């Protein structure tokens, strides 16, 4: 197994872990943080697959825009999920 395959497998496991956290957490701000980490690692995966333009687009949308818009939406509504 080459080291490239090991890198991709570790990144994919981390993406799955971040996505599960984003769904599982009750605090919506923590969920947004987990989603930002997951999209960050997705950009790293695009980078490893030799697609730097897609990685730049994913970084711009996932890290900056999505987090900012979700935080603004939580600010206007409520933070804790109701049971």
């Amino acid at each position: 197994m080459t080291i490239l395959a090991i890198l991709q497998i570790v990144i994919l496991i981390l993406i799955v872990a971040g996505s599960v956290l984003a769904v599982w957490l009750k605090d919506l701000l923590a969920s947004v943080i987990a989603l930002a980490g997951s999209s960050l690692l997705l950009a790293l995966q695009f980078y490893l697959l030799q697609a730097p333009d897609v990685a730049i687009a994913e970084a711009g949308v996932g890290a900056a825009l999505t987090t900012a818009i979700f935080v603004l939406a939580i600010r206007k509504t409520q933070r804790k999920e109701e049971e």
Partner: protein
Amino acid sequence: MIVALPFAAAGLAMLGFILVCMVRLSVGPTAADRAVALDTINTLVVATMVLLGAAFDLVVLLDVALVYALLSYVGTLYIARYLERGLS
């Protein structure tokens, strides 16, 4: 393909550090812990991108790391401003 193996091994070590930060992101009791874990993951991903750009021997890949280092700051800034109740 990877041409410089030590850089790729260093990138793999960075992924191990990211794994430790993901543990803090999952068990962190407050949102501030998770925000700091996310910021550390941001920095580690930028370091990984630089190391893998050296491992692939492609100069183009360093632009992604540069853009990412600029943009990851914005997300952390928004979360921090929300935590300080200053986001209007």
